C-alpha cells in the first residue's frame, strides 16, 4: 500500500515536468488554429472555432509550399546519398577482406571529425562553394550536408557490418558472389535496420539544419524551412497567428511520424550518443 502511494506521489513531479515539456508546443498548436486578432484578445483561449483554413493560407500565400519543398528535396537527397556512400564505406571499413595498411588510421581520422566544430570549415566551404558556383544552390547545400553527416553514418554502419559473421560472406562467395553483389544483395539488405536508424538520425538533422543554410543560402526562393522561419519572425513579428501555423507546418510531419514510429526515432536519435 505505501508503495502504491509512493508511485502516485511520484506522478506529481512527472506531471509538472510534462507541463513544462509539452506546454509551449501545445500552446503554439492552439495559436496555429486562431487568428492573430483572436490571440491578442486572449493568448491562452482554446481554438474555438478552429481556423483550419490558416494552414492553406500559410501554404499558398506565405511561401511555406516552396520552403517545405526545398527542405524536402535537400533532406531526401542528402539522406539517400549519405546512406549509400556511408554504407559502402562502413562495409569496407568493417570487413576483414578489405583491410589495407592505412585503413585504421583513415577511419580514425574520419571518426575524429565527428567532433569538429562546423566553424572550422564554414568560411572556407563558403569560399569553395562560391568558387564552384554551388553557392546559393540546393545542390551545394546537399553536398555540404552529405559531407557533414558522413563520418557519423560510417561510424554507426561500420559497427554493424563488423559483427556479421564471416561464414555468411564465405558461403555467398562460394556461390560466385562478386564484391559488389555481396554488398548490394547480401550485406546491405541485412543492414537495413541499422541503415534505418541512420536515415532517421540524418533526416532529422537535415530537416532542422540551420547554420550552413544561413551562410550558404541567400535567395528567398531556395530557403529551407528553418531559414524561412528565421526571416518570417522578423518580417511578420506582429502576425503571431500565421507564424504559429508556419511552425506547425515545419514540425508536424516529423512529429506525426514520430508518433507512429517512436521506438525507431528514439533509437535513431540516440544512436550517436550511446557508445563513444
Amino acid at each position, binding site marked *: 500500500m505505501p508503495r502504491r502511494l509512493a*508511485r502516485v506521489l511520484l506522478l506529481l513531479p512527472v506531471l509538472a515536468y510534462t507541463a513544462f*515539456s509539452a506546454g509551449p508546443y501545445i500552446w503554439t498548436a492552439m495559436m496555429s488554429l486562431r487568428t492573430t486578432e483572436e490571440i491578442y484578445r486572449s493568448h491562452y483561449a482554446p481554438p474555438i472555432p478552429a481556423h483550419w483554413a490558416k494552414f492553406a493560407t500559410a501554404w499558398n500565400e506565405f511561401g511555406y509550399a516552396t520552403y517545405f519543398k526545398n527542405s524536402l528535396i535537400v533532406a531526401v537527397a542528402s539522406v539517400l546519398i549519405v546512406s549509400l556512400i556511408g554504407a559502402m564505406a562502413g562495409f569496407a571499413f568493417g570487413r576483414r577482406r578489405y583491410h589495407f595498411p592505412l585503413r585504421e588510421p583513415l577511419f580514425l581520422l574520419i571518426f575524429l571529425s565527428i567532433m569538429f566544430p562546423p*566553424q572550422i570549415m564554414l568560411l572556407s566551404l563558403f569560399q569553395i562553394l562560391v568558387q564552384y558556383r554551388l553557392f546559393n544552390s540546393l545542390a551545394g547545400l546537399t553536398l555540404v550536408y552529405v559531407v557533414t553527416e558522413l563520418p557519423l553514418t560510417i561510424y554507426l554502419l561500420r559497427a554493424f557490418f563488423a559483427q556479421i559473421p564471416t561464414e555468411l560472406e564465405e558461403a555467398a562467395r562460394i556461390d560466385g558472389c562478386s564484391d559488389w553483389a555481396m554488398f548490394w544483395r547480401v550485406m546491405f539488405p541485412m543492414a537495413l535496420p541499422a541503415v534505418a536508424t541512420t536515415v532517421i538520425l540524418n533526416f532529422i538533422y537535415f530537416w*532542422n539544419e*540551420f*547554420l550552413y543554410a544561413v551562410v550558404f543560402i541567400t535567395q528567398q526562393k531556395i530557403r529551407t524551412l528553418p531559414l524561412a522561419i528565421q526571416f518570417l519572425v522578423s518580417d511578420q513579428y506582429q502576425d503571431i497567428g500565421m507564424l504559429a501555423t508556419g511552425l506547425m507546418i515545419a514540425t508536424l510531419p516529423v512529429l506525426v511520424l514520430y508518433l507512429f514510429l517512436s521506438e525507431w526515432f528514439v533509437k535513431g536519435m540516440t544512436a550517436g550518443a*550511446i557508445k563513444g
Partner: protein
Amino acid sequence: MRRPRARRPWGAIAIFLGPTVVLYAAFTIYPVLVTFYNSLHTLRMDLGMLYEYVGLEHFREILTSDDVFWKAARNSLVWAVVAPIVDIPLALLLALTLHARVPFARVFRTVWFTPVLMSYPVVGVIWLWVYNYDWGIANLVLRAVGLGAYAQAWLASPLTALPALILVTTWMFAGFNMVVLLAAIHAIPSDYLEAASIDGARAWQRTLRIMVPLLRPTIVNLVILDFIGKMKQFALVWVMTRGGPMWGTETVATYVVKRAFEWKTLDLGYPSAIAVIWFVIIFGLSLGLTRVLQRREALEF
C-alpha cells in the same frame, strides 16, 4: 575458382571507399587546411578574395584586444559548463522516476523526448513567445503564483538573457538525455539490484550507491556530448537574440559568422583565426574532460 585473400581486392576497395575518400578530402580536410591558411591572411571579399599575408597578427589581436571575442568565449564556456550540470542530473532524476514504474511511463517518455525533434528556429520562436513580457508563459506563471514582482523582459537584460537561453536548451535536451540514461538503466543486470536489496539496502541507497556508478560511462559520454554541443551553439542565439543585449548572449559561433558576413571589414581571415582558436580549445577541453572524467576505472558488468 577465385580464392579469397589471395590478394587484396583493390578494385572493390576503390569502389566502396572512393566516394568517401574524395568527398572527405575535398570537403572536410581541404576546407580545414584552408581555414588554417586563411587565419594567417586578410582575405577581402570585396576585392575578389584578395589575399594578404599578415602572419599571426589576427591571433595577437583576438587574444589581446578583442573584447567581443572574450565576451563571446566567456558566454560559450558558461553555457558549455552550466548546461551539462543542469541537464544531466535533471535527466537522471527523470529517468530514475520513470524507472520507479510510474504509471504511463511510456507516454511520458514519448512526450519528453519530443522537443529534440524540432529545429532551433522553431524552438527559438516558441520561446520568444514564452519569454514575452506581457503575455508569455514565463511571466504568466510567475504572476499566477504571486511572484509577479519577478516578471520581467527576460531577453532584454544582459543578466537574464543567457540563463534564459540555457533553459531553452535544457528544455530541448533533457528528454533526450533522459532516454539515453533510461536505456542504460534497463541494461543493468537486475541481480545487482536484487543483491543489494537482500542486504537490506534501502531504495535510495540502492540507487545512489549502485546504479549511478554503473551509469558512469553513459553519464560521462552525455556530459561531453552536451559540453561540445554548447561550445558550438549558434542557431538558438541567432534566432532569439542575435547575441544581444550588449553581447550578453554572443557566442563564439555567432561572432565568427558576424565578423565574416555582417562586419564592415569584409575579411574572412580574421574570423578564420577565431575559428582556429576555438577549434583548438574545443578539442583540447573535450580530450581533457574525457581523461579527467574517465580516470576512475569504469565498472564492468
